[in-house]
């Protein structure tokens, strides 16, 4: 065997320093690096698989959701076509002095459906006003004194500001769950009853009337003084005209 052949077969050890053969540790390091890369690619592959799974799942969910949403919306679509007719216009001169709020519970069963019970909380707002067309202003400029005679405040406006279903029970059976017509009628009756009860309650409330009278006095005194900026120390007296 020639030296060359011996060298290539690895059997010759002569003059090894002249040959730049990498050590076996470099080879081992390459093996370790290859193993680590394999693990990294495996983990990345798992991650990609998971994200594509979630994406496909989400798309399937979205498609099903949109189809079901459109069908259900069509089945329960409510529309209102409203026309407004202006019957009359009237110029008035009423001073709003007090705004009051209160609530009432209206309990009712559906008329043709005994299994449906509704407890509706109706909240309303009322306005107490003083009719200034019936007011009388008597001014004494020498004594810097103004007497104002006004009628008692009255509740002139009311509106339902908010409703809230506090309790509702109805049958889940498709054969005994009433009808849309029954539900609409029940809601309208409760609103009308709630409005009437609240309005009557506010109108008859002594507490609200006293508060309205106090507010009227304060407001008129303030207006009279501020509209006479040239008179300092102006005295204002407000009296209520007792109506029969």
């Amino acid at each position: 065997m020639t030296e060359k052949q011996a060298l290539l077969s690895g059997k010759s050890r002569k003059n090894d320093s002249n040959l730049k053969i990498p050590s076996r540790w470099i080879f081992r390091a390459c093996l370790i690096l290859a193993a680590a890369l394999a693990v990294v690619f495996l983990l990345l592959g798992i991650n990609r698989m998971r994200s594509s799974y979630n994406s496909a799942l989400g798309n399937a969910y979205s498609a099903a959701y949109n189809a079901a949403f459109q069908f259900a919306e069509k089945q329960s679509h409510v529309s209102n076509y409203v026309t407004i007719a202006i019957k009359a216009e009237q110029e008035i001169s009423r001073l709003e002095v007090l705004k009051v709020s209160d609530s009432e519970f209206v309990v009712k069963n559906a008329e043709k459906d005994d299994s449906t019970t509704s407890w509706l909380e109706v909240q309303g707002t009322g306005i107490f006003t003083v009719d200034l067309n019936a007011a009388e202003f008597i001014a004494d400029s020498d004594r810097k004194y103004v007497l104002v005679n006004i009628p008692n405040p009255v509740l002139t406006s009311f509106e339902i500001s908010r409703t809230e279903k506090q309790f509702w029970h109805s049958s889940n059976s498709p054969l005994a769950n009433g009808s849309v017509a029954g539900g609409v009628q029940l809601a309208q009756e409760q609103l009308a009853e709630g409005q009437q009860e609240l309005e009557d309650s506010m109108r008859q409330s002594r507490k609200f009337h006293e508060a309205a009278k106090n507010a009227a006095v304060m407001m008129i005194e303030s207006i009279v003084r501020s509209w006479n900026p040239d008179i300092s120390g102006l005295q204002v007296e407000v009296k209520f005209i007792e109506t029969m």
Partner: protein
Amino acid sequence: MDTVKTTDQLAPKSDKQPKHLKHAFFQQAIFALRTHPFHDVATVILLAVLVLSIVFFAISPGVGTVVGLGIGSFEGVPSGLADGAKDGNAEGLSAKDTTMDIRTKMVQTGKLEVLLVNVELSDVYKHGEVPIVGGPQYAALYTIQGEGIFSVDLTQAEVTLQSLSDNILIGIPRPQFELYIKDSTLKNIAEYKASVFDGNTGDGYTGWLNSREQIDQKAQSELAGYNSLMEHAKASALDQVERLSKSICGSEKKVIVQFLEEEDE
């Protein structure tokens, strides 16, 4: 006879390794594996341990979960159920879910109502659709009365005394509109009910409550933006405030009433 060259002669003086020597590297590597088993078994074991540790790191949460579930199910579930039921019952009966809200409120206001508008709203209400056959589950024609009021907030008025002429200048804000619909005046003019698939009470109830809210908001917006009414309200406001000022200030003083937005122009 071939000439035998020494390794000096074989090895070139430059740093570049000839191809046959690179080939020698791999052959020597294989030779090393075959001739030094101890070192290379260590390499293989080291590699195997490394791979196994990485794999274990990846699967350890899952392994822990499975074992925990298994042991927890055997020991923890029965006692957890009993304790949870007892504590949950006590918590539910504690009535901590109690809310308070004061509904009765009073607020002073100083608006002068200048124009009252009586309106009648006519509403064609349609609800749902009957499957296959088509047409609404319910339809009705209603009328309902309301009152619209234009008012001027006198608490926002600005009163100034013109020093040169002793005139009183009263600046008032633009009238605001408020609509008051009376539910007690609702009349059912006509209605249609589907004979089958006529819906349920709950849907009808919710549909009307929401409709009532929408009608209120949109009618309010529509009337507030109606120019003809607003112009009438503005004219009435100027007239009413001027009359009131003459009563309050005396007829000998000259009072000028105008809108605050005109003062700024």
